[in-house]
């Protein structure tokens, strides 16, 4: 299958790559670009482990074809921390022990980031509703919800 040349922006950086039209964004991120922070859980849009932002919109990257990102902005987990500091969401996830195996964590953090960009002061129910597209099997979600609410409070003050 001949490859297409795609030019896009990932975490603010101009990136270009070659891909087959059948390859998902998830596959290109992980296998082509070495950005393995975005995880694969089911590859059919049901677990949210592959959540990224595409032009600020929360998407499952397993359901986006890589060619669709041409000229767009992609945000992945790798773009959140600064060289010296974790993002408040990352910090709060650690403080609240909101991760056990950690495989769902990048997806949850990206989803929470998208939520807080839209709704900086969500209620517990709103957080649960927004994050229902992300599955976690280890934590039972309790500490994840607490971490997101705490991060929201911290980000609000800043």
């Amino acid at each position: 299958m001949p490859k297409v040349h795609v030019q896009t922006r990932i975490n603010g950086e101009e990136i270009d790559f070659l891909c087959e039209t059948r390859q998902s964004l998830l596959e290109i991120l992980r296998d082509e670009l070495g950005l393995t922070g975005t995880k694969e859980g089911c590859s059919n849009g049901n677990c949210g482990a592959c959540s990224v932002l595409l032009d600020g919109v929360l998407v499952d990257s397993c359901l986006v074809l890589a060619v669709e990102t041409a000229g767009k902005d992609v945000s992945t987990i790798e773009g959140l921390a600064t060289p010296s500091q974790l993002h408040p969401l990352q910090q709060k996830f650690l403080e609240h022990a909101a991760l056990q195996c950690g495989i769902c964590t990048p997806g949850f953090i990206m989803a929470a980031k998208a939520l807080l960009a839209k709704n900086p002061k969500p209620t517990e129910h709103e957080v649960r509703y927004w994050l229902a597209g992300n599955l976690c099997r280890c934590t039972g979600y309790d500490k994840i919800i607490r971490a997101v609410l705490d991060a929201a409070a911290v980000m609000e003050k800043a």
Partner: protein
Amino acid sequence: MAEATAEYKVIGTRPIRPDGADKVTGRAIYGGDMRLTGMLHGKVLRSPHAHARIKSINTAKAEALPGVKAVVTAQDFPVAEDRIANLGEMAVNVKLLSNNVIAVDKVLYKGHALAAVAATSSHIAEEALGLIEVEYEVLPAVLNVLDAMKEEAPLLHEHLTTTELGQKTDKRSNIANHMRFTLGDPAQGFRDADIVIERDFDTATVHQGYIEPHNATALWNEDGHLYLWTSTQGAFVVQRQTAEILGLSVSKVSVTPCEIGGGFGGKIAVYLEPVAAVLSRKSGRPVKLIMSRIEEFEATGPTPASHIKVKMGVKKDGQIVAAEASLMYEAGAFPGSPVGAGCMCIFSPYAIPNMQVDGYDVVVNKPKTAAYRAPGATNAAFASETVIDELAEKLGLDPLDMRRLNGAKEGDRRVDGPTFPRIGYMETVHAALEHEHYASPLHGPNRGRGVASGFWFNVGFQSTVVINVNADGTVSLVEGSTDIGGTRASIAMQAAETLGIPYEDVRPTVAGTDGIGFTDVTGGSRTTFATGYAAHEASLDVLRQMKERLARRWDSEVEKEFEGQAERASVQITPDDVLYASGVFKCAKDPSKTMTFKDVSAQMARMGGPITGRATSQPRGIGGAFATHIVDVEVDPETGKVAILRYTAIQDVGRAIHPSYAEGQIQGGAVQGIGWALNEEYVYNTTGNMANTSFLDYRMPTTLDLPMIDTVLVEVPNPGHPYGVRGVGEVPIVPPVAAVANAIYRATGKRMTQAPMSPGYILSKLNE
């Protein structure tokens, strides 16, 4: 932030885990993230039939597809011996394990592997699968335990005969094993009972549902050495099982455990590793395989569906006088369900003088079952805890009072024989009785509150820990327990406590088979307990060595002052004279002589050389874990949907090293139990195909399905561990299904005898 108790400086606090930054930034390398130069992608061809003979496999067209570098079948594997070996947590039949990894002459479940391809891209590998031609002779399939036990059932295995009460027989059957445990005289017990209840229960096949699929990357070097990278609960299990299947010495197999995205017992046995290895050898390149979600459901190790009969008899005063149970578990395509554990757990929360429990391990045309958190116990508790609830109701007793009256204590005997050591069951019942949740009113129609208890043994098993002292007084701790839920932290905390140094000064590393001594799986509720034990012992070894060196140093200083005098012996400084507390060594015979841990570390080179503490552990004194859960539900009478309004999980944890991670284990296990109770099941069609092989229809709980999960950590320190640790990881999954069933009963007046209690089932019960 919790503070250390008066007793401990580190234990009981909630520090950030050492691998935390890696995991929240996405930098941590899980098995699926592995990349090696020249790496190929592998895919596995799996049977479309639940039961069939393989008449021929033709791989020529697949091999010819450009980009394909190797195709393998059972022909590329050694012929496996029919013998039992100890290859991990349990004794395993090598032939059966190998046949599950790759089918030889029969496929025994839809999804059973029979060939594999390595190619330059996963897409090409997938295309190649479609070019492999297989001729099958389809055979009738048997898809549930009761059908499989019938005389006329199709048999899965030529040579499988029933082991009847410990004795191998000649009877060819799908019943691999019938076991029995007895205590006292159940027949007399039932005659003495005032009320007897007998009920039947059914549970469906359920998957552990870890979000990360199985993966394996193999490099079979030209020098004959096999390197494996995999997400596993136990690198040494992978090493041993792969070596056995491939006919290699373990010294030829190096396993590096990557970070792992959940296991719960399902990532212990090998599936992909031997296949990746053989593909690597044949292609001459590294090969990575990752399962798709469909393969996860169809071809890994779910937990057994089961049929369970429970009969219990009580006297009017509430004493349970007799109990009987018959547990029939689906083992899947090969024998080895956890029915034994189910039998040994089912009545364990109670002191019952007369019991008989029968267990049947039965093969069916479904994937071979594997462990799932307290394997075998959840099915059993669903049955027994529901019957106890019904008995309490008939007696007019509060269900927790029923448990208080009959609860197991130290010295009480289990049905399999041994008596309990110091345990904390009654403490969990009292904590539940006194909890605000239990006292709070539950108003409104269609609402109900249920309780249930559960027991799990926990295991000890083997761990190795090495602690290397750095010149700045920090230490590197090397261990072999893959960190699935925060154990780097809980193990480092125990070492820090024993060494008397700050938690931040302990740098834990998880090593593979080349880097650390034998360590059993992360699982079985053993890691914080047994690897922590080894960390404690290794820390004592470090301190012992430091004391020896200080004794020599301080004694040599005394030498200068007392040359040739008779009092020499009485002033000689031995290691026993060196005391240690809070980071400072002090000489008992001369308090002016002190040295800090940091100073000793800085001077190691001039005091005898590097200091490395080491210990292996295979602890006794495990004790077992108990839990009691309380749940409030609301049932929608129109849709049958059950909402969880409130959940409290109470558990005896011995001592919580890192309370957040102990809570996390309880919350996670409870929620898996809620999923098991309400929605999760393998839905099979009539030809043995699982119809719901995606997370859309294999419905696990989401954030929207749950409230916060409250936990109560009851601490009855385990006398068998230096810090009182009891394993916590598994027992939380034991009570929830029964607790939810009992709550639904109180909300609807209908007893649940089937799990999951999905909306359709509940509606059918409401409309009875």
